[in-house]
C-alpha cells in the first residue's frame, strides 16, 4: 500500500524543476539513506540524515523510484509536483503475510491449517517476566492460567483448545525449530508466535503434537543501516487479591462463639476482648493484620533492553541484551534476568545461506529459606491475636512456627539458571534440480534441569543452587515480667548449607530437503526432514549441616561425617524422526496438503518405539473464483479449509515396559547403620505406547472491505485415545502392587473458535480498532477406568462427563431448630448424616436416593471443572495524533470454584467472611454454625461451597505518546515513545478471597500480581 501525504502545489511547467521531498517510515520518522532515482535514468540522489532529498527533474515529468533495503520499493509519479513526502513501507508487512508453520513458512493465503499468530511486539512492553503469562486472550485457542506471581515462578499453564486428555496437557514449544523452554526468553527478541492447533498444523510434530504446538521465531537482522534502540520500564507490583482476615477482637469474639457452640468455656475473657479492642497491650494482646504486615506495597520491577540490528545485502545481524529485575513481596525475594541474543545470517554464496544464532540467559533468584507456599501457609494460619512480631521488632510464633521468621530468619535459597541455546544452519540451493534446496541444522542447548518437571514452565529453574537454611529463632513474651526472650526455633536445628548443580544438554540434528516449483497453474512444494534428538541430564548436590562459623561454604561446615551428605544421578532421552509435507495448489484456488511424521522414542519397548502420524488438509479460496472476484469487490479474501489427521502425546513415565526394582536411600536401620532399600516397581506393561489424537478441523477465514473486517472461525473435534490409565482389570487390594499403566482411556473434545477484527481510520489523526477472540471447548470422557461404585450410579458416573467434573453432596441449606426433637435428635423422616451429631446450623445434604441416610450413594455432580469452557479476549485500540491507547480484556466462563475456607481449620485464623455464620437469628448465613474445629459434617465436599468461577480481567493497559518528528529531528534521534502500562489491573470475579486463577484453593500460595509501569522506547 502506498499513500502520499502532502503538498500538491503546482508551480506550472519549467524546463528543469527542482523537486524537494522528505521520506518517512511507517511511524512518521525521517528515513536517511533512501535511494531516490528518476525511473529509466541514471539521475539519482539519497536522502540526508533528516530524510530530506532534492533532485532535479528535466521537464517536471516522470516517475521517481524509492529504494531502501528491507522496505518495499515505491514508484511515485511526479506530475509536476515540486514538494512531496513519501512514506516507506517495511517489508515485514509482507512477512506478516507469511506464517511460520512446522519446519517452514507458508503464505498466509495458502495455509490450509488452523494457525494463530501473535506478534512479538504485542507483548514486548507487557510487564511480565514470564512470557507464558503474556499470551492469554491474545489469540483464539489459548488458555493461559497463571497460578502464582512469585518472581521466577510466575509462569502460566498453557492449554490449547481446552483439555483433551487426562494426562499431560502442555503444548509442545518449539523455539527456532527446536523444542526449548521459552518462558524466559527476552520478549524483545521475539519476532512472532505461531499457535498450531489442528492436525494439519501439528502432524509434523508427531508424538509431540497432540496438545498443540507453540512455535516461536526469534528476531533476525534486516539489511540496512544499523538501528539501535533502547527500551526501559519501571513498574510497581501489588497482589491482585489478598484474603481479608479478622482482627484480634473479631477473632476472639468468633472463638468464644465457637466455644459456646461446643459447650466449652470461653477461651477469651472480657478483659482479653477489651485489650484486643483498645490495643493497650500490644505484646500480650496483639492485633496484627498478618498478610498486610508481611507483604510490602509497590515492590519494583524493571526492565532494560538494548537492540542493534542491520546489515548489508549479504550479511544481516540482530543482537540484543536485556536486563530484568523483579522484587518479591518481601525483602529477601528477588529475581534478576540477563538475556543476550545474537543472530547472524550470511549469504555465503549466491546459493548458500548460513545462519548462526546464540540465545543465552542467566537467571539469578533469591528466596527465603522457606518456600512461599509455606510462608503463606503460616501467614494464613497465624491468628491476628498471636505475636507476629513484638513491639521491639523481634519475631513471635504460632504453634512453634514463625510467619515473620519464615521470611526474615530462615536463611536463603539462591539459584542461578544458565541457558545457552545455539544453532548453526546451512541452506544450499541445489542447482541440478530447480526449486530444490537442502538445509542442515545442528543445535546444542545447555539448559538448567528440573528433575521433577523437565517441561514445567512454571517452576523455578536451577543450574546452580546454594541454600543456607538456618534455625528460625522466635521469641516469647512473659506477661508477668514483660520480658521478651528467645523461646525456641523452627526449621533445621543447625545451619544447613546445600549446593546443587544441575544441567541438561540437548543435541538436535536436522536435515531438510525442500522443494518448491510452479508449473503453469500448479504450485508444488515438498519437504522432508530427518531429525535426531537426544538429551543428557545430570544432577549433583552436596551439603553440610552444623556451621559454627558465619561462613556459608561447603568447606566451612562441620567435618563430622554424619553432617556431610551428597547425592546425584543422571538420565538420558533419545528421539528419532522423519517429517514430510507436500502441498499442491491449483490456480491459487484449490489447495491440498499432506504432512506427517514417523516418530520413534526411547520410552517404549523395542518393537513399540515407532509410530506414524499422518494428516491431510484442503482449502478453497472462494474469493479467487470469478463469480466472487468479479461481483463482490468488497470481499478481499475468503477461504474455506478443512483438515484431518493424527498426532501423539508421550504420557506417563518412561520404561514402564521394564520389570524393575527401584533403589532408595535411608531404608531400615540395621546394625545401627543406615541402609539402602530396593523396592519392586509396578508390574511392567511391554505394550505400553503413546496417546493418539484424531483431530478434525473445519474453518473459514476472510478479509472484507480492505481490512474493515477480518474474521476466522473454526470448528474442531478431537478424539484422544490410548490415554494411560491403571489397568481396567480390577485387582484385589491384596494384590499388593500396582500394574503398569495401560493405553485404555479415551475422551473427546470439541468446540469452536472465532476471531474478529476491525480497524477504522476516521481521519488522518484518529484510527480506532478492535479485535476479539473467543474459544469454546467442551470435553467428554468416553472411556476411563472407573469402579463399579461410581460407574453403576448414573449420578456418580465419570464416564460421559467432562474431565474433573466436581462431585459431592447436594446441600439443601442448614438444619433448622425445627428439624430436631426436644432431646436434640433429628426428627424421624430426616435422613441421617454419618459424620457425628448434627445441630441446627449444620449443612444438610440431600438424600438423593431416599434411603434415609446420607452416604456415598447420594453423591451427585455439583459443579463444572476448574478449567473454563470458554475463554475470550477483547482488545480495543485507539491512535489519536501522537497518542496510542490499547487495552486487552481477558476472561473465562463456564467454570466453578470451590471456595471453602473454614475458620480455625487446623487451628488457623478466620477470614472476614467467616464472621457470617449461622445462628438462630442469622438463618441465611454464608457459613454454617461455627465450631472451634470445623465439624466433619460441614467439611464434606458439597454444593454448598461451589461458586461461579467466571472472571474478566483488564489484563493489559497501554497508553503511549510518541514524540513528534519535528522534535526528534532537532534531537537527531529517530523516535521516542513514552508509555504508561499495566498488567492485571482490574479483575471482576465472584471469588472475593482469592485471585480467580489461584493455584491452591486454600490460598496458601504466592498471589498473582498487578503491575503498573512507566516506560520508554527510544530508537537512535
Amino acid at each position, binding site marked *: 500500500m502506498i499513500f502520499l501525504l502532502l503538498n500538491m502545489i503546482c508551480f506550472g511547467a519549467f524546463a528543469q524543476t527542482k523537486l524537494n521531498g522528505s521520506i518517512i517510515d511507517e511511524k512518521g520518522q525521517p528515513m536517511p539513506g533512501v535511494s531516490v532515482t528518476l525511473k529509466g535514468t541514471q539521475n539519482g540522489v539519497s536522502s540526508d540524515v533528516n530524510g530530506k532529498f532534492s533532485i532535479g527533474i528535466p521537464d517536471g515529468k516522470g516517475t521517481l523510484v524509492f529504494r531502501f533495503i528491507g522496505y518495499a520499493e515505491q514508484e511515485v509519479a511526479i506530475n509536476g509536483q515540486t514538494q512531496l513526502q513519501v512514506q516507506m513501507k517495511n517489508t515485514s508487512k509482507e512477512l506478516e503475510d507469511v506464517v511460520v508453520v512446522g519446519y517452514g513458512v507458508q503464505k498466509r493465503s495458502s495455509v490450509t491449517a488452523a494457525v494463530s499468530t501473535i506478534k512479538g511486539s504485542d507483548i514486548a512492553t507487557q510487564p511480565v517476566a514470564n512470557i507464558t503469562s503474556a499470551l492469554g486472550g491474545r489469540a483464539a485457542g489459548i488458555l493461559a492460567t497463571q497460578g502464582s506471581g512469585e518472581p521466577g515462578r510466575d509462569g502460566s499453564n498453557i492449554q490449547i483448545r481446552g483439555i483433551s486428555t487426562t494426562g499431560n496437557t502442555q503444548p509442545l514449544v518449539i523455539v527456532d525449530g527446536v523444542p526449548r523452554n521459552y518462558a524466559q526468553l527476552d520478549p524483545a527478541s521475539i519476532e512472532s508466535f505461531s499457535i498450531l492447533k489442528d492436525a494439519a498444523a501439528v502432524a509434523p510434530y508427531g508424538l509431540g503434537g497432540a496438545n498443540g504446538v507453540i512455535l516461536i521465531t526469534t528476531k533476525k537482522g534486516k539489511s540496512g543501516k544499523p538501528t539501535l534502540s533502547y527500551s526501559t520500564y519501571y513498574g510497581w507490583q501489588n497482589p491482585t487479591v489478598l484474603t481479608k482476615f479478622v482482627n484480634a477482637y473479631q477473632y476472639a469474639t468468633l472463638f468464644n462463639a465457637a466455644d459456646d457452640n461446643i459447650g466449652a468455656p470461653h477461651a477469651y475473657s472480657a478483659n482479653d476482648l477489651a485489650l484486643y479492642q483498645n490495643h493497650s497491650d500490644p505484646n500480650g494482646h496483639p492485633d496484627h493484620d498478618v498478610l498486610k504486615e508481611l507483604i510490602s506495597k509497590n515492590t519494583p520491577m524493571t526492565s532494560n533492553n538494548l537492540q542493534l540490528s542491520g546489515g548489508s545485502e549479504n550479511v544481516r545481524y540482530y543482537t540484543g541484551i536485556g536486563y530484568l529485575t523483579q522484587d518479591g513481596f518481601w525483602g529477601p525475594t528477588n529475581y534478576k534476568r540477563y538475556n543476550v541474543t545474537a543472530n547472524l545470517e550470511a549469504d555465503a554464496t549466491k546459493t548458500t545461506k548460513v545462519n548462526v544464532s546464540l540465545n543465552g540467559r542467566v537467571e539469578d533468584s533469591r528466596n527465603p529459606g522457606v518456600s512461599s507456599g509455606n510462608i503463606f501457609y503460616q501467614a494464613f494460619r497465624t491468628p491476628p491475636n498471636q505475636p507476629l512480631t513484638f513491639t521491639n521488632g523481634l519475631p513471635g510464633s504460632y504453634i512453634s512456627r514463625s510467619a515473620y521468621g519464615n521470611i526474615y530468619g530462615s536463611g536463603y535459597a539462591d539459584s542461578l539458571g544458565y541457558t545457552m541455546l545455539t544453532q548453526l544452519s546451512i541452506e544450499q540451493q541445489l542447482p541440478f534440480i530447480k526449486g530444490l534446496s537442502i538445509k542442515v541444522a545442528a543445535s546444542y542447548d545447555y539448559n538448567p534441569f528440573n528433575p521433577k518437571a523437565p517441561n514445567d514452565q512454571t517452576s523455578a529453574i536451577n543450574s546452580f543452587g546454594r541454600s543456607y537454611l538456618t534455625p528460625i529463632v522466635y521469641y516469647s513474651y512473659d506477661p508477668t515480667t514483660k520480658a521478651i526472650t528467645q523461646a525456641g526455633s523452627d526449621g533445621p536445628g543447625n545451619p544447613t548449607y546445600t549446593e546443587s548443580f544441575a544441567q541438561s544438554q540437548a543435541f538436535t540434528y536436522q536435515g531438510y530437503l525442500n522443494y518448491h516449483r510452479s508449473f503453469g497453474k500448479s504450485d508444488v512444494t515438498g519437504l522432508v526432514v*530427518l531429525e535426531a534428538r537426544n538429551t543428557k541430564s545430570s544432577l549433583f548436590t552436596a551439603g553440610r549441616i552444623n556451621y559454627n562459623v558465619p561462613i556459608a561454604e561447603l568447606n566451612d561446615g562441620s567435618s563430622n561425617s554424619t553432617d556431610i551428605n551428597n547425592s546425584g*544421578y543422571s538420565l538420558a532421552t533419545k528421539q528419532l524422526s522423519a517429517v514430510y509435507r507436500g502441498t499442491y495448489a491449483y490456480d491459487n484456488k484449490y489447495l491440498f496438503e499432506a504432512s506427517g511424521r514417523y516418530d520413534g522414542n526411547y520410552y517404549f519397548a523395542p518393537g513399540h*518405539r515407532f509410530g506414524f502420524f499422518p494428516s491431510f488438509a484442503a482449502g478453497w479460496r472462494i474469493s479467487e473464483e470469478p463469480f466472487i472476484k468479479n461481483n463482490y469487490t468488497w470481499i478481499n479474501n475468503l477461504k474455506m479449509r478443512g483438515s484431518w489427521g493424527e498426532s501423539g502425546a508421550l504420557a506417563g513415565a518412561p520404561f514402564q515396559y521394564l520389570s524393575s526394582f527401584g533403589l532408595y536411600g535411608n531404608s531400615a536401620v540395621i546394625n545401627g547403620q543406615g541402609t539402602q532399600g530396593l523396592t519392586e516397581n509396578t508390574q511392567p506393561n511391554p505394550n505400553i505406547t503413546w496417546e493418539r489424537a484424531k483431530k478434525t478441523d473445519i474453518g473459514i477465514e476472510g478479509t472484507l472491505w480492505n481490512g474493515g473486517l477480518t474474521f476466522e472461525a473454526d470448528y474442531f473435534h478431537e478424539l484422544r485415545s490410548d490415554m494411560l490409565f491403571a489397568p481396567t482389570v480390577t485387582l484385589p487390594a491384596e494384590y499388593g502392587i500396582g500394574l503398569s499403566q495401560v493405553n485404555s482411556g479415551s475422551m473427546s473434545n470439541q468446540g469452536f473458535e472465532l476471531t474478529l477484527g476491525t480497524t477504522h481510520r476516521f481521519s488522518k489523526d484518529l484510527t480506532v480498532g478492535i479485535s476479539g477472540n473467543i474459544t469454546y471447548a467442551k470435553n467428554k470422557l468416553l472411556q476411563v477406568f472407573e469402579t463399579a461404585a461410581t460407574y453403576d450410579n448414573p449420578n456418580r458416573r465419570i464416564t460421559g462427563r467432562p474431565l474433573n467434573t466436581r462431585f459431592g453432596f447436594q446441600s439443601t441449606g442448614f438444619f433448622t431448630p425445627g428439624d430436631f426433637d426436644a432431646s436434640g435428635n433429628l426428627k424421624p423422616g430426616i435422613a441421617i448424616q*454419618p459424620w457425628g451429631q448434627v445441630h441446627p446450623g449444620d449443612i444438610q445434604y440431600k438424600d438423593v436416593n431416599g434411603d434415609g441416610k446420607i452416604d456415598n450413594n447420594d453423591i451427585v455432580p455439583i459443579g463444572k471443572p476448574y478449567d473454563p469452557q470458554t475463554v475470550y479476549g477483547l482488545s480495543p485500540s485507539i491512535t489519536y495524533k501522537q497518542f496510542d491507547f490499547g487495552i486487552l480484556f481477558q476472561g473465562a466462563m463456564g467454570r466453578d470454584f470451590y471456595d471453602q475456607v473454614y475458620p480455625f481449620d487446623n487451628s488457623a485464623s478466620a477470614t472476614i467472611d467467616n464472621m457470617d455464620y449461622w445462628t438462630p437469628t442469622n438463618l441465611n448465613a454464608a457459613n454454617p454454625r461455627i465450631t472451634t474445629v470445623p465439624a466433619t459434617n460441614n467439611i464434606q465436599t458439597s454444593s454448598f461451597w461451589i461458586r461461579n468461577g467466571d472472571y474478566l480481567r483488564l489484563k493489559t493497559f497501554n497508553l503511549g505518546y510518541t514524540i513528534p518528528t519535528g522534535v526528534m529531528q532537532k534531537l537527531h534521534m529517530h523516535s521516542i515513545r513514552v508509555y504508561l502500562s499495566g498488567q492485571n489491573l482490574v479483575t471482576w470475579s465472584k471469588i472475593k478471597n482469592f485471585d480467580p486463577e489461584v493455584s491452591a484453593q486454600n490460598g496458601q500460595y504466592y498471589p498473582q500480581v498487578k503491575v503498573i509501569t512507566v516506560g520508554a522506547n527510544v530508537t537512535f
Partner: protein
Amino acid sequence: MKTPIKYISTGWLLLALAGILSSSCKKSLDSSLDITPHDRLSGPTVFANTSTADLDLNDIYNQLPDGNNYYDPFDNWTDNSICGYAWPNSRNEAQQANYTPATITFGNQALNLDWANNYGYIRKCNVFIANVTASALPESYKTTRLAEARFLRAYFYHLLWMAYGGLPITASPLDFNKDGNSVFLPRSSSDDTYKFITTELQAIASSLPVTPQPGRVSQGAAYTLLGWVQLYNQDFAASAASNLKVMNSNTYSLFADYGSVFLDNTANSEAIFYRQYIPRVKGNFYGSVNGPTFTKGGVETSWGGVDPTQELVDDYAMDNGLPISNPASGYDPKHPYTHREQRFYESIVYDGSFSYNDTIYTRQGINSANEIDLSDHNDAGQTAYYIRKNINVGIQLGPDNWNGLSGGQNYYYFRYAEVLLNYAEAQNEAAGPDATVYAAINQVRSRVKLPNLTAGLSQTDMRTAIRRERRVELAFEDKRWFDLMRWKMGNNLNNPIHGVAIKSDGAGGFTYTPVVPPGGNHKFDVSKNYLFPIPQYAIDQNSKLKQNPGY
C-alpha cells in the same frame, strides 16, 4: 507431453529417504533408541548376589510399623490417653467408633493396620521369598534370610488378623498375568489364619540366630511373636510354652532402670524385637509431637499428642504396691501425686512436675500455657497430664525434633517385660497362679521397686493383678487396644475418659475434680467393634471378601 523428469528424480530422492526408515532397518533404528535407565535395577540383577538381595530385605524391614514417628499413637484409641488436638483420627473416628467400611483408615497410628498397605508388605515378603528360593545364592544365606522374611510376613499377617479376623492368605506373589482370576482370594477362617501364622513361626524359629545383627529378627523374636499370637487366640498352654522358651534362652533380662529402657538406642538386654533409629539421619520425632506442649515461657515445643487419662493415672499403684482404691494404700486425694509407684513418675508429666527443663503447670487460674484445654483451643493437654515415658528430654527442644527427626530411641515391638507378663497371663489362665506366675510378674514389679504380690491370690485376683500390671508397665507401647480386644473389655470404651481440673482451694492447697474434656466421650459397639470393618475398597475390588458382622 514431456516427461516431467524432475518430478521423477525428486520422487526417487523422497523414496530413498523413506527407505532409510523402512522395516529392513527398523531393528537397528529400534536399538539406536536403547537407553539403560540409571534409576532402577532389573529383577534378575537384584537376586543375583547377596548384597543386592539384602537391599530388598532392608526394604521389608523398613515397612515395619514406625511407632516413634506418629503424632497420634495407638493408645489414643483406648482409655489410656487422648490426643491434645482435635483433628487426628483417634479423636474423630476411633473414640467415637465412627469407622465404617468407607472411612476406616489407619494413617496416623503407631501400628499401621491398613489393609492394602500390609498386603503390599506381604507381597514384598513373598517376592523376596520366591526369588531367593529360586536363586543360586548360597544355602547359608538362604536359610537365615528366608527365615527373616517369613517371620516378617507372619508379623504383617498377625497385625491384620488381630484387626480384621480371618484373612485371604497367599504365600507367593500374586501374578494376574499368570494366574488370572485365581488372584481373587476369599478370606480364610480366623482359625486357619491363626494356624498359618503359628505354623510359619514354628517352622522358621530354629533357623534364626539367637543374637543376630541389631535390628534383625532373632529366634527369641519368633518365639515371642508365636507366644503372643497364641495368647491372643486364647491358646494359653501353648502360649506359656512359647514364652517359656524365650525366658529359658537366657538371652534376655530386664533393664535395671525402667525409664531408661525407652531412651536406649542399642540391642539391649530387654530388647527382643525393635526398630532402631539414627538421630537426624533416620531419626524420630516422638518427643516433639507427643511430649508436653508448652515449655519455657509458654513456647510450644511439642504438640501434646498423648495426654494420659485420669483412668490410667489411677491405675498406677502407690509405692507400697497397693492400688489407690485400697483404703490401706495411703492415697490422699488432696495430694494425688505423692508416694506413687516409680513407673508413674517415669511415665507421666503431671501438674507441677518437671520436664524439658521446665516446671509444667496444668492447673487452672494461673495463666499457664499448659492449663487443661477444656475449650479445645490449642494443642495444650486435654487432661492435665502429658507423657514422660519414651520422651528424651535431653535432646534439643522445639520443632527441630519434628523437622530434624532428632530422636534416636528404639521402638519396641516386643521387649522382655512383655514376655514375662505374657507368660504370667497364659500360665495363670492355663494352670492357675502357680509359683512361675508369681516369679514372672514379681520380676517385673521388683525392677520398679514394688513389693511382690501377696501370695495365695485366686486365679481371678491374679488375672486382675496381671491386667493392672500390664496396663501400667506397657502404657503407651501400643498394646492397650489389643489387650482390651482380647479380654473382651470393649465396653470399657463406652465410659467417658477424664482429665482433672486442678484449682486452688483458696487455702494453699488444690482441688482435683475429674472432668470430661472435649472428645472424651467414647463409644464402642460390643456387637461389632471387636473387629474392624474390611475397607469398602477392598470388597469393591474383590467380591470374594465377606464383610465382618455388623458393618
